Each structure stands twice: as structure tokens, then as C-alpha cells.
């Protein structure tokens, strides 16, 4: 084995941006690292396994990964450095990484030297049985993988429990492919983590992890004071001036909960006690309440969550460095005036400490996630209009189109003539529409969706450097006219633009996870109409006309000789192309 060269820190992990204070956190406590990740110290690997950039020599079908010099990416090859062993041993852990495979690659992650999470290339197969996320002999629930040469994201949460090892969750490309998988074996001894490749090559990057130990923080010596308050909580101000109020009752409590009192409305509580933390380091607190709350540690305000806040929707974070041992704890809390709405939750996460509640169970909502109500695609071009979440925005005039034969589906914003997302697998979960009143009216993809920017896809750009419009005005320039159903079954969307009509059609390719989009502009003299093909962080122009969009999140290739143009924007790059009147543009999206 060669000696290793030291390595500087890896590129900033995407997740660390979530660690900013005040960002809403809507995902459940699990799989949501708020503090900084540790990154795998790659200097432990073979020096020549580290490269600067990595891309598949031939997109999709290549069996070799080409690379440049550098130290950001770990490249494992079956016929070279085929394995990487971590310098630490582990038990329970959370792991996030990105990987890229060659065509036909086989390999994976070995946990505790005993359990293997497969990362095999599964492109072109119809079955999820050997798809990435397979653990030992257990296949994932669906194939959420991407094509060879694209960067894929894996997140997993693994615990040694009393009943043996459990994979709480494995997410591939944002989609859950394993959940609560108990392996039915005894807990293995602590052992290093191993990345390995058996066939072809797999590149890894951004390998972040947290090891979870047994030592946990706890609240101690908690006492409370109860105050009665007139009136309602308001959006601006719910925490009262406690000095002006009379204490109605006091007591001690063995846990943090809004239920320490018999009162159900119009009251406020203050809690005081000690927070004991086991390890020195940075701690992240999350406060979510129905009402309002302010958290103090060591006499300093850490999180101010005043105002009428919603347990399910609002969250506030505070980060602080703590020494081991006791810290003065104080929490001011006002319950919402609506009597039956409750929720007082305080979570903490720290070095070696998984995000955990400091409150008691009964103090928060515990809603179970219902099973999906699956709408299967039916033939070619199943249509389904709905509300749709796109990033954090609820779109109201969206349609999803499913294809049962190819298992490739997409969503489209009819307001903006905008391809929103595309995915493979099952079509939609419509539980939030078709059960009861359908309170959210949301359709949710049943697969790992590639999410697009959501900007209007067509525009007239008076000048070459006119920036792409963020949104349309009420009266144009694009106007939705409807859609026709083509002979082959799918919709052809129609828009009025620049005195003519745009026709826009997306058809799944006959093999592989791919959509072909054809656009024409007819009856128009407009020479400055453009289509936005793609927008993303980086757009790589590949060797055979295949663009790797959004840093190889998906491939795009334009049919024929037309040449799109890459433009810099304030956030990344965009790929646009002129839309000449009375001609058709077509391009493919593959992932």
C-alpha cells in the first residue's frame, strides 16, 4: 500500500446549508442532520484513487470513468483500487454520499463488515430487484437510480438496536427505497465502513457521516411556573411579559411538556432546570410549538420563536457550542388560545448525538404517515391534474402525465408551460386528493423525481442578453390554450405566443428512462422566440452532444444540427435555443 497524501476538506456538503438558523425544517426528525457532518478523511485511501473530476467517457453506456487530477473524488475500480476502508469503526450511523457508476458497475457500501448496501448500476433493467439500495438479500421498494455517469445521492440511517441492526431509512435520489428494514441478525461488532467495487468503476464524493453513540443529553431538575393569560395569541406577539403576571401554580416535572398543567387554554408556562450534555461540541436545537416560545441557555437567549407559530409548519433553530456537563436551561412558553391545538417540541442534535427530543412523547403531535393511495398509469398518456408541490411552492394548475408501458412519467405546469419534474416507477400517490375531502389536493410522484427549475419554458427575448423571465404576467406573453391528445396517446400542449401557436409534446423513449420533447411554433413571424431547455448549477457539454445538466443530474441531447447556447445566470447556467417559426425542435432528457 502506498503512503497517503493529506487531503484538504471536500467540497461543501449541500446539507450544511440547512444548518442556518431559521430555515423551516419540514422533514421528520430522522434523516435530517442539522449540525455539521464529519467527512470521510479521504487521505486514508490509495492516493491514486483520488481524482479531481470524474465523468463517464461515453455518457450512459461507458464502462470507464475518465478523470482529471485532483483530490475531491474517490474513484474505485474493480481492476485497480477496488476498496476503501474507513479509519474509524462504527455502530449506528447516518451516512450521506454521492456516487456515479459506469455501465454495468457493481459495488456498494459494507457496514460493520457485515451488511452490504448495493450501488449496482441498474440502468435499462425493468426490475428493482438488484437496484441500488438493495441490502444483503432485500431488494429496494423501487428503482430510484439514475443512468450511468450521473451523480446520484444516497442517504441512509442505520442503527444497532436491541433487536439487531435496522436500516431505518435508505433514500436514493430523494426517494425512500428502504424503510424500517430489520435484518434479523445480531448486532455485529464495531468495524470500519468499507466502500467497494466488484465490477466496473464507481466514483464517490461528498461522503458525510455521523457516528451515533450511547451518551445522550438530558434535562434535569425541571421546575415550572404557570401563568393565566387573557385573550388570544397573536401573530406578532404571544410571549407575555412574565414579570407583570401573577404565578398561578408552580411544580416540578420529570419531563418537558405542555401537559404539566390541567389548564388547556389561555395560559403560559416557564420552565427552568439544567440541560446536561455529554460531549463538548456544537449543538443544534430546534424549537417547534403551537403558540410561541423562547429558549435560553446559560442565561442567553438562543431561540426566539415568539408570535403565533404552528407546530407542523414553523420551526426555529439555534446553534451553540457547549462544554460537557450542566447548562442553565430556561424556556418560556405560551400555548395557542385554540384549545385543542397543541405541540411543544424541543429537539437537540450534537456531536455523536442523533437528533432527539428533549420533550416527552405526549407533548407533540405524532401523526403517522398514511400509506399511499396509488393511481396507476393506464396505457399511454394517463392524465392527472392537481395541485402540486414544486420545490417549496404549491402550484395550482399542474398536470401529471403517466405512461404505463415505459413507466416514465412527468409533471407540467400549465400556467407556465414548464416541465416541472420527471420520474420512473409508479405514477402518483393521490391520497391527499381522493380520500375524504382531499384537504391538500396534492398529487405526489411515486418515484425519485428529477426536478426542473419551473420557469416559463418559452419566451421572446428582445436581445441576446435579455435574462430569462422568472414568471409570466397575467396577460402573457404565453397563453395556455389547452391540449390535444395525440394519436399515440399523450397530450400535446398548446400555447399562444408571439401571434402564433406553440405545440409542446413529451413522449417517453421506448427504452430506458428518457423523455423526448418536440416543440414547434407555427403561424408566427417572431424571430426572437426561445425555449429554455435546461437550467441548473452547471451544464457540461459532453463529447457526443450530450449535455450533463445540473452537474450531471440528467442528460440532455438535442436532435439534428441545432446548437443550443449555454448562458451564465446569477444562479448557475441555462441552456436556451432559438425557436424558429414553422420548424420543430426536439430534444431528449435521459436520467
Amino acid at each position, binding site marked *: 500500500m502506498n503512503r497517503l497524501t493529506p487531503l484538504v476538506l471536500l467540497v461543501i456538503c449541500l446539507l450544511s446549508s440547512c444548518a442556518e438558523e431559521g430555515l423551516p425544517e419540514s422533514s421528520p426528525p430522522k434523516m435530517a442532520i442539522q449540525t455539521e457532518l464529519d467527512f470521510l478523511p479521504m487521505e486514508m485511501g490509495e492516493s491514486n484513487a483520488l481524482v479531481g473530476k470524474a465523468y463517464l467517457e461515453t455518457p450512459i453506456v461507458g464502462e470507464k470513468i475518465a478523470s482529471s487530477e485532483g483530490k475531491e473524488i474517490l474513484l474505485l475500480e474493480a481492476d485497480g483500487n477496488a476498496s476503501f476502508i474507513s479509519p474509524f469503526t462504527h455502530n449506528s450511523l447516518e451516512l450521506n454520499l454521492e456516487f456515479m457508476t459506469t455501465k454495468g458497475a457493481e459495488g456498494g457500501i459494507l457496514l460493520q463488515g457485515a451488511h452490504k448496501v448495493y450501488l449496482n448500476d441498474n440502468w435499462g433493467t425493468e426490475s428493482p430487484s438488484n437496484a441500488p439500495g438493495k441490502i444483503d438479500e432485500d431488494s429496494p421498494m423501487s428503482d430510484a437510480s439514475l443512468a450511468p455517469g450521473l451523480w446520484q445521492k444516497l442517504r441512509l440511517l442505520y442503527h444497532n438496536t436491541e433487536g439487531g441492526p435496522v436500516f431505518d431509512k435508505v433514500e436514493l435520489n430523494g426517494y425512500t427505497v428502504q424503510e424500517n428494514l430489520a435484518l434479523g441478525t445480531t448486532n455485529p461488532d464495531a468495524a470500519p465502513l468499507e466502500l467497494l467495487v466488484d465490477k466496473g468503476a464507481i466514483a464517490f464524493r461528498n461522503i458525510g457521516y455521523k457516528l451515533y453513540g450511547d451518551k445522550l443529553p438530558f434535562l434535569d431538575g425541571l421546575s415550572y411556573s404557570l401563568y393565566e393569560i387573557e385573550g388570544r395569541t397573536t401573530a406578532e406577539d404571544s410571549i407575555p411579559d412574565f414579570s407583570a403576571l401573577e404565578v398561578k401554580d408552580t411544580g416540578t416535572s420529570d419531563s418537558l411538556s405542555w401537559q404539566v398543567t*390541567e389548564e*388547556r*387554554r389561555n395560559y403560559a408556562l416557564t420552565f427552568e432546570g439544567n440541560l446536561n450534555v455529554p460531549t463538548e461540541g456544537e449543538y443544534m436545537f430546534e424549537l417547534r410549538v403551537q403558540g410561541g416560545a423562547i429558549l435560553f441557555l446559560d442565561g442567553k437567549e438562543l431561540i426566539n420563536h415568539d408570535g403565533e407559530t404552528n407546530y407542523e409548519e414553523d420551526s426555529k433553530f439555534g446553534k451553540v457550542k457547549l462544554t460537557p456537563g450542566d447548562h442553565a436551561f430556561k424556556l418560556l412558553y405560551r400555548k395557542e388560545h*385554540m*384549545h*385543542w391545538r397543541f405541540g411543544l417540541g424541543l429537539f437537540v442534535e450534537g456531536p455523536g448525538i442523533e437528533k432527539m427530543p428533549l420533550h416527552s412523547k405526549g407533548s407533540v403531535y405524532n401523526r403517522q404517515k398514511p400509506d399511499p393511495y396509488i393511481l396507476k398509469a393506464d396505457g399511454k398518456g*394517463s*392524465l*392527472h*391534474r*392537481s*395541485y402540486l408541490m414544486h420545490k417549496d411552492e*404549491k402550484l*395550482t*394548475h399542474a*398536470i401529471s402525465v403517466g405512461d404505463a408501458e415505459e413507466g416514465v412519467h412527468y409533471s407540467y405546469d*400549465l*400556467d407556465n408551460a414548464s416541465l416541472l419534474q420527471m420520474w420512473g416507477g409508479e405514477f402518483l400517490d393521490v391520497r391527499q*386528493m*381522493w380520500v*375524504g*375531502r*382531499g*384537504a*391538500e*389536493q396534492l398529487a405526489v410522484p411515486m418515484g425519485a423525481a428529477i426536478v426542473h427549475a419551473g420557469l416559463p419554458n418559452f419566451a421572446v427575448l428582445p436581445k441576446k442578453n435579455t435574462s430569462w423571465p422568472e414568471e409570466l404576467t397575467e396577460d402573457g406573453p404565453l397563453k*395556455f*390554450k*389547452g*391540449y*390535444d*391528445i395525440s394519436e399515440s396517446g399523450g*397530450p400535446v400542449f398548446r400555447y399562444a405566443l408571439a401571434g402564433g401557436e406553440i405545440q409542446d409534446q413529451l413522449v417517453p423513449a421506448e427504452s430506458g428512462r428518457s423523455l423526448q420533447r418536440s416543440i414547434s411554433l407555427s403561424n408566427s413571424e417572431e424571430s426572437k422566440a426561445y425555449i429554455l431547455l435546461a437550467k441548473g448549477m452547471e451544464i457540461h457539454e459532453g463529447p457526443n452532444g450530450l449535455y450533463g445538466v445540473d452537474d450531471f443530474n440528467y442528460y440532455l441531447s438535442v436532435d439534428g444540427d441545432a446548437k443550443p447556447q449555454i448562458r451564465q445566470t446569477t444562479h448557475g447556467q441555462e441552456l436556451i435555443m432559438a425557436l424558429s417559426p414553422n420548424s420543430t425542435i426536439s430534444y431528449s432528457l435521459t436520467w
Partner: protein
Amino acid sequence: MVKRYFFYILILILGSSLMAQENPHYQIEDLPIPEGIVLEVGGLAFMPDGALAACTRRGEVWIIKDPYATSADPANFSRFASGLHEPLGLAYKDGSLLTVQRGELTKLTDKNGDGKADSYESIAKWPLSGNYHDYGYGPLLLPNGNMMVALNLSWIGYGASLVKWRGWMLEITPEGEIMPYATGMRSPAGFGLDADGELFYSDNQGDWVGSGRVSHVSKGDFVGNPQGLKWAQEEGSPVSLTFDMFADSMGTLYTQAMQVDGIKEPTAWFPHGVMGISTSAILLDDTKGKFGPFENQMFIGDQGQSKIMRMQLEKVDGSYQAALFPFTEGFSSGVLRQVWGEDGTMFVGMTNRGWASTGRAPFGIQRLKYNGKTPFEMHRIEARPDGFEIFFTQKINPATVRNMDKFSIKSFTYHYHSTYGSPAINIETCNVSEAILGDEGGSVYLKVDNLREGYVHEIRLKDVKNQLGKKLLHDFAYYTLNKIPGGGTGQQTSTTASNKSSSSTKRVTTMPVNWNGKVDESVEIATKPGMYFNKEVLEVKAGSKVKLTFNNDDDMQHNWVLVKKGTIDEVGLAAIELGIEGPAKNYVPDTENVIYHTKLLEPETTEDIYFIAPDKPGEYPFVCTMAGHHITMRGILKVK
């Protein structure tokens, strides 16, 4: 014991079949639907070839080739379109079907003749807030070639107009130009034209809507809920009122309409619980007698009570008022839509997803068929300067109207306020001084002392018989009197506070002093959408001091009533029988079968009641007795 059980079952069977034949002159028949088709009807329309088209809440449009078929033949159903966003209306015009999705008026056309729509043309699109309550209804085809569309308010703990044109009716040209028509709508699920082409719409009880009602709508009208006025200053708005003109409580809508230009008085009030709980479609009888003797009258559906009512309009001094009559009950699900078949049968489209209905089936289509034998009914009521003249479908036996105690008339109205619903207020008994037979025994003219404009007049007839000795099929009606012909002697009474229902030993809302500040058990219960409690079982110890908290977190009114075992249906029906007194009495009938109860709680409110749990362990049913809710909204208090 077994025998007794059998007896009950027999009663149940008889009861239900009687219910189905509540009006024996009109037979309800099922249109059988094949397995696998979820026909939650949002709209119905007949095609020129006699086929029936139905759009569904799941976004499909089905064509039923033979709507008179008696078996569920899958070949009789073909799917014309799919993937629409909860379309709640359907119309046929010039070879296309027109439908209103949540955010769009859409024209569906089969251009290649394969029986499936291949063109989904967006005629007009409007914004949505993303709220579930953003329903859209229509289109109604207008004589001028345009289409009328109506848009619900959103529900965010109250009805709100979060984006442009929610709470409005819009007139839309075939080219897609949107012309705002009128506002003040809350949940305008039904609208239609009368015989003169005038537009009427129905609304559901809620905030600013004291009880269900139908209003005549002219361009520029404001009909009640101020939320839509947020957009009254927008370009194209024909309404000039402003949102800030409205305080939380405004007397009655009628008095406001008399004082302020642009506010429209309701044409007909539907007393909540008696004349439905959620008015839906409006259908004009233009069958020219094929459907019986009610030509030019209108039939109004009710989703929650699975029934259809009859409305007869009168126009006095240029403004509309109407008499309402019960018509037919016993449909299998929630009645949302009615259309005429070419043979003069009424096709009724139904759904009860999310809002339970008396008919328990989740969805369906039924036909209502006239048997050709004239029912003995009040045909119409006409207002007179000093009373009402009631016309019958058959000549009456004069002997049965001789005594004045055959007639009882009460008048009342409703609050106009931001609060959800209203009890009947200012209830007054009217003295009937004289009854004069007219029309050779075909009518009776009642002279009434204290008619009031702006008031609903409940008219009850007792044991009025026809010449064959048959009783009236329905013996009461509600006449909303907006104008007394000739100005009349009508008097205005100012609104006074409603009769606050008094607390009784069955509803104790403060902790009894002798409990010394301690309860043994605190139990909480709330609701689940679709008219259910969130808990099916509550448990308390026998004889314990109980504090029960009922959180009405639903978007409609509910109560919680503990009753004696086996009396849920009896109490539920007795609550309906309270009629217009229901709201003021919290829908709690005065019967020993009621053990404890809360008040009638508005949406998003809560009440604590204190009671001693029964000494005898066992199971005690609890129920919501808000008109009709007892069918689904029930549970068990286990006393241990």
C-alpha cells in the same frame, strides 16, 4: 328476546322502504354502475343522442349510452375524458362537453370520432389559492351564448377570498373573455335559470349565510358574503360596494338590501335542517307536464339530506320571493346534480365524499320517475296584500278548512353576521283571521294579521283533505315574503338579540362549586372531516366527576349529545323535527332520552361541560344531533 330483535329489524326494513317511497307518486330508481367505476358525480349533461354524460370528482367524464338501463353493463359506460381537476359541472353544446375544473373552464371535444375527447381546450383560466375549498361550478349555458361559472370561497377557519374572483360568479364568452358578474357567494354549488331566463343560485349555510338560501342574481349584485368584495375594485367588476363597509354583525340581510344599493335580498330561505342542510343544484321544470303538475317551478337538491325540494317563484313589484315545499326524500347518496331525461324523468347525480349524507352510498345516479297520478300537494302560494292564497293540485274538501286552527303561521328571519349560521330569530306567530275557499275549491285564501316583509313565513296546514278524503302529501311550506303586494300592511320589526339557549342540568358549563375545583376525569373529543367524531369510544368511571371538552375543529356546526342506549335514531329524528327552532335549541330535543349535551358549536370553537358519569356501568351512545348528522356522527361512552 330474539323475537323482539326481529321486530326491530322489521321496523328498520319497513322504515327504510317507507323512506324510499316518501313520495309514492315519484319512484326512485337506480342507474346501476359497473364495479370499478367511482362515479362521484360532479356534473350531468344529456347528449343529443340521448346518452348521459357524467363528470366525476376524480376528474373523469363517463358517457352512459343507455341511461335507462337496468343492469350494470360495463359496455354501457365509456370513459370520454380523464385527469380533470375535480370538475363540478357539465354542459353539452355544439358537439362538445363543457366543464368547470377547479381552475379552468374546459371544452372537451372528440374530433376523430373514437368516443374519447382528443381536445381539452382551455376556454378560460382563473387563479386558485391552493385551498381544498376552491371549488368551481358550471358552466350554465346562457341564452346570449355566454357561460356562467361560480367560484367558492376558500376555507381557512372561515370563508375567505384569497385570490381573484373567489366568491364570484363570472360570465365567460365562448372566446374566453371573463366578465365578472356578481359577488357575495360563499359556496355557490347550484345555479339555474327560471322560465323567464332569470338567474338564481343556491348557497350553503355558513359565515354570513344564516341558513341555506336561493337568491336571484342580476349583473352587479352583491348577495351576502363580503369576502369577494376584495376584488370589487378590479377592472371589469360591476360591483361598487367595498369590503370595509361590512361590520361583523349587520342586522338582517333583507334590511341591508333595502338600505344599500347593490345588496340583494335572498329570494328564498331554506330553514336549516328542515329544508336541507346543503342546497345544491337548481332545476327548472320545463318538462311541459311530463314530470307532473309543477311546470315552471324549480327543484332544488340537498347534498346532506339526500333529498329534493320544490321552489315556486313569485315576482312582486319587480323583486323575487318564493315558496318552498318538501318534495322527495330517500336518495341513496348526497344529491348534487339534477338534469332532465328526454322522457321527463329527473336524473340525480350524487356524492358524499368528505361530507356525509343521509343516503349512505358513497356515490351514484338515480332517476326520479313520475307515475302520472297527480299527488295531492300545495301547488303554489301567492302573496296577497293581507295574507296568502294557497293553491292545491286537487280540489279540497271544504269541511277540512273550516276551522282557523287548521292553519298555523309563524314568521322569522336570520342574523346577517360573520358568525357561522344563525338560529331563526324574531319568531312571531301570525294570526289567521279568515280562510276563504276560492277557485271552486282549488285554493284557500288565508287572511293573516301580521305579515312582515323580509321574513320567512312558515305555513302549516292540519288535516286538509281532498275530496277523496286523502291528506296532503306535504302539509307545510316556507314563504319568504320580501314584498307584500300593494305595499300591504306589513310592519318592520327591528332585529333583537337571539334567544340565547339557557343552560340546564343537562348542560353545565362551569364546574359545580361542590366539586371543590377537582374533576375525576377530563375527556376530550373533536371531529374528523366527513361528519365523524375523532374518537369512537370515550371511557369514564361510573359516578365520576367528568369534564368533557368538545372541540369543534370542523368547518361546520356540531354538538355532542349523550343519549340513552338505543335511542340515537329517535333523538336524531326528534332533533330534525325541531324545525326552525332547532338552532336556538342547539338541536337538542326535549326528551328524557338525552342525558347530557353541549351547545351547538360553531366551527373552530370549543365547550367544556361538567357532568357526573352514570352510576350504572355500561355503554352509552353519544351523537351529534345537528340536523341529519346523527347518521354518521356517533360513538360510545364506556362507563366502567
